[in-house]
């Protein structure tokens, strides 16, 4: 019988309205590198949070057994003491502290509370040589590259005598050579007896590194197999494999003229000089079609359109055409004037002012329509808002209530009302149905259809393959800041899209 260091038994985790994990069970063998793969939203991150105590015991159903004992962790400290460490997608280092201070954060060698800096320095140097990182322990973390920072994170885990290391998308931000270094390091850790759980969208890395593979889909464990019994193609079909149900109100559209075009659009990386988030993308979107943009998280989909909108941290270069006319967009005001509107993926942070009313949110991007000489006309505001509430069937007790009292679906409709009121020619919908229930999703799809009929160019970014396939007329896939495929919706399947979305070797 296999020696499991970690066993998960029937883990179920519910959020209000959503079952993020349902009956997840699998075991991780001691000394193995165990891969966890699945689509965006399959439940990987939630599972990680259960294992490393972000959701404390009692917050989920089921049992986490570590080293044969059931864990009842209440705090992160207990998790760390047990020997479990997690390296999250976003690094958790203090940028303005030194490497040594970060490695021994809250774990400093000390005597009566007074830090022994010599010992800290020496210990840190040893740890850094173990992870193969050649920097001075006194170096400030901000001055290191992302790959090096990742190594510091690993050294930090080793300083705590880690037995089980969880790596959540560790290579997402790394260059090819950094990826190689990281994979070698994980391999060495394995040889020294550290067990790893490795999460990645990059299936090649998984095939290269891991011993066992567990597939998650819709919050459920689909299968756990040793690598030898799994191919990349099998992995992909297991990740996506499900039937398309009748969730999408697909309507026949007739493609019209080009309404939106990008030529040679490049966006530099905001933090890493010399790298690009978007690399020379050209694309066309037509009136009378829904263009779906598919790709994995971090591929650059949101960055591309945020940069076109003039709201990204760095300025994009390239040419933007709306209705055949070249437009110059320096900020969101220019974009709105040009007839471009983005319904952002993060409606709470970027789409809405939660403490403002339905009315105030609806008119916010078009105040000039409801005012003269800077003075608001309340009657006009009420008229417009009421019109859109009726038109897109927003359920709200009154147009004066604050939007944070509405459900997710109705909040999204308020964002759509705001978009519609600005009379957009081109509308970007970034994850338009994230976190909203099935009924509201259907309504939002119907609104999209209505807009297409009115001649608005609709570009939909989505991580949900079903949604992309169910609603788009044409699909582009983006990976690593480049377009890796263009498909007619009739020809595309989830497998084909997934293959294009994992990018690089697959194309």
């Amino acid at each position: 019988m296999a020696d499991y260091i970690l066993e998960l038994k029937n883990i179920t985790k519910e959020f209000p309205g959503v079952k993020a994990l349902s009956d997840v069970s699998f075991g991780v063998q001691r000394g193995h590198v165990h891969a966890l793969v699945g689509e965006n939203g399959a439940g990987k991150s939630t599972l990680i949070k259960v294992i490393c105590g972000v959701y404390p015991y009692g917050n989920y159903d089921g049992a986490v057994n570590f080293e044969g004992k059931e864990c009842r962790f209440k705090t992160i400290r207990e998790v760390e003491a047990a020997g479990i460490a997690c390296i999250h997608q976003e690094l958790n280092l203090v940028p303005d502290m030194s490497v040594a201070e970060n490695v021994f954060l809250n774990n400093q060698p000390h005597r009566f509370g007074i830090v022994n800096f010599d010992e800290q320095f020496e210990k840190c140097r040893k740890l850094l040589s173990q992870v193969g990182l050649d920097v001075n322990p006194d170096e400030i973390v901000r001055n290191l590259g992302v790959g090096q920072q990742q190594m510091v994170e690993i050294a930090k885990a080793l300083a705590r005598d880690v037995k089980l290391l969880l790596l959540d998308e560790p290579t997402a931000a790394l260059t090819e050579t950094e990826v190689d270094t990281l994979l070698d390091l994980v391999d060495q850790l394995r040889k020294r007896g550290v067990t790893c759980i490795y999460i990645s969208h990059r299936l090649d890395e998984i095939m290269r590194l891991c011993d066992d593979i567990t597939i998650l889909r819709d919050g459920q464990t689909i299968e756990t197999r040793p690598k030898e019994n799994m191919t990349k193609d099998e992995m992909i079909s297991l990740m996506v494999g499900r039937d398309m149900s009748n969730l999408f109100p697909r309507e026949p559209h007739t493609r019209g003229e080009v309404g939106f075009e990008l030529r040679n659009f490049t966006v530099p990386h905001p933090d890493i000089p010399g790298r690009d988030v978007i690399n020379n993308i050209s694309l066309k979107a037509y009136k009378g079609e829904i263009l779906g943009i598919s790709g994995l998280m971090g591929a650059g989909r949101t960055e591309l359109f945020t940069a076109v909108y003039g709201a990204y941290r760095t300025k994009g270069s390239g040419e933007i055409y709306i209705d055949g006319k070249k437009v110059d967009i320096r900020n969101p005001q220019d974009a709105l004037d040009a007839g471009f509107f983005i319904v952002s993926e993060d409606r709470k942070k970027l789409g809405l002012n939660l403490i403002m009313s339905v009315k105030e949110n609806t008119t916010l991007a078009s105040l000039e329509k409801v005012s003269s000489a800077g003075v608001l006309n309340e009657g006009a505001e009420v008229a417009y808002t009421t019109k859109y509430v009726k038109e897109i069937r927003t359920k709200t007790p009154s147009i004066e209530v604050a939007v944070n009292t509405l459900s997710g679906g109705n909040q999204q409709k308020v964002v759509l009302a705001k978009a519609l009121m600005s009379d957009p020619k081109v509308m970007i919908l970034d994850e338009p149905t994230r976190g909203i229930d099935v009924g509201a999703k259907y309504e939002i799809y119907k609104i999209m259809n209505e807009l297409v009929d009115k001649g608005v160019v609709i570009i939909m970014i989505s991580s949900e393959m079903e949604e992309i396939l169910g609603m788009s007329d044409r699909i582009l896939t983006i990976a690593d800041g480049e377009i890796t495929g263009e498909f007619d919706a009739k020809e595309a399947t989830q497998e084909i899209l997934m293959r294009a979305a994992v990018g690089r070797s697959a194309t």
Partner: protein
Amino acid sequence: MTKKKLTPKIDVRTLTMIVVLVVIWVAFAAATGGKFITTRNISNLIRQAAFTSIMGVGMTLVIVTGGIDLSAGMTMGLIGCVMAACQVWGGLSTPVTILVGLVLGCIIGAIEGSIIAYVGIAPFIVTLGAQLICRGGMLAVTKGQTIAPFEKSYVFWGTEYLLPIWGWLVAAVAIVAMVLLKINQRRAKRKHGSLDESEFEAVARCAAFAFLVLLAVGILNNFQGIPIPVMVMVIVVVIFTFISQRTTFGRSIYAIGGNISAAKYAGINVKKNLTLVYILNGLLCAVAAVIYTARLNGGTATAANGSYELDAIASAVIGGTSMTGGVGKVSGAILGAVMMMSIDNGMSMMNMDSYWQFIIKGLILVAAVWFDTQTKKAGK
């Protein structure tokens, strides 16, 4: 569609504040044997509150954007001294002197605002720096002297009263305006089927407003009439309520304070609007400076010893403005200012040591914010 049930909208917060204020007044009245509620004292108290309210209005706008102005008191002081110098030493007429003050207020605000908005330095730091600079400026202008006296037409703004007959006229205008606004608002809402107030409620609101206005004017007229500073305050509050509630600019500053990213995404010119807020705040500091120096009949550097910006911040916060931005009403600043001044005034009347004033004011400030966080939690 079934008829929606009309639940009366009661502003719990304002109501609580008014109750607290009444309790404070009753307590002081009892403790001073009725001296606190003589019309003379109330007139005096409201005039003091007028000055703090005007500063509080500007501060409310600034805090609504998510900022803070630590320089307001010193800006006010500096402008006062400059105006005194203009008139006393420079011989400028009153209108020109006041114009110089107002322009200077705008300039100081414009400098602070553009550094905050365009350079991107935190408001706390920029206005802290400005506080020190203005304090230095004030001492430089006065060289420690008192610059006095002003002309009579200047002193008028701090010390005179409206004739009682004018006071009644003002009250009448206010009540008629309120009723007309209400009718207009209800007509618009009925047209769009979003009427959320019953006839009875509307009448009750108007009646309550009329009663309060008549009561206030009655009390003030019983002494000498409406003090000019109070009149100025009323005008300032009306104008700035209009600006903050009825203009695109007002809407923009609430949007910026509530969620600056969403405001940017909605195409709002964040930098321009932020700068404008600090300009208006500077302008109001100048208005307050006119009243302050007119009352003292001279420009002195004593303002350097005060902490008028803290009174203004406290008025805004007690009046319901949230330090996190996006929430707050200009009119709330009056309530906050009246409450603070009542405590000052009542306690000195009781001959209590001044340290008690600080302690009690501090407690009330913290309690007001605590009350806000509690009602917010209960609302969720």
